[in-house]
């Protein structure tokens, strides 16, 4: 299956992209996606190993199981207001 990873602010600067399509085995969880991204090396190696993520626009724990087409956003500390 394929999931879309979105990067914002400092994570965007690390990743060098706004988004990345990632292929994962079915049954994969958010934690597996994080591991897969960090293993690519480059700036992505600096992603925290427990980042805050939102799956399809809901904050979700790392144990969340992913489905094909899910949108996983990596959310660095927010600073609105």
């Amino acid at each position, binding site marked *: 299956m394929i999931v879309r990873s979105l990067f*914002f602010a*400092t994570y965007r600067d690390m990743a060098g992209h706004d988004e990345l399509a990632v292929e994962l085995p079915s049954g994969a969880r958010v934690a597996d996606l994080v591991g897969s991204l960090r293993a690519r090396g480059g700036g992505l190696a600096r992603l925290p190993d427990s980042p*805050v*993520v939102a799956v399809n626009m809901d*904050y*979700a724990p790392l144990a969340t199981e992913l489905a094909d087409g899910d949108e996983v956003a990596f959310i660095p500390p927010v*600073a*609105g207001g």
Partner: protein
Amino acid sequence: MLGGALTPADGAALLFWGVVREQNDGRAVSQLEYSAYGPMAQREMLRIADEARARFGTGAIHVVHRVGRLEIGEASVAIAVASPHRGEAYEASRYVIEQLKQRVPVWKREGYLDGHAEWVPGFAPAVEAAR
């Protein structure tokens, strides 16, 4: 922004603006740029407004956050609350801005007078239940 929010049951209206200041933690700010995960930010702001209405029993609550470049003196966020009673209007408005700062996916890059720019450190949103 309040025009459509008030009904004949409302006795108080409160409008809050967050405004870009010339100083943040003692550094002279020349300009700011906000970016957001737009669709989710919109959703979180609606959720926060719903929570505040339910918790404090107010009338309509509208929340708007700007993105892009802002100059000093410009408003970055506006929160309008209509309410039968004033106490609840103040509490709801305060709830919305505090929650917004803790969980709405918006980021701020400050430009300083020395030409340097950086992402402002913020809050790590709490992640609760498994879905």
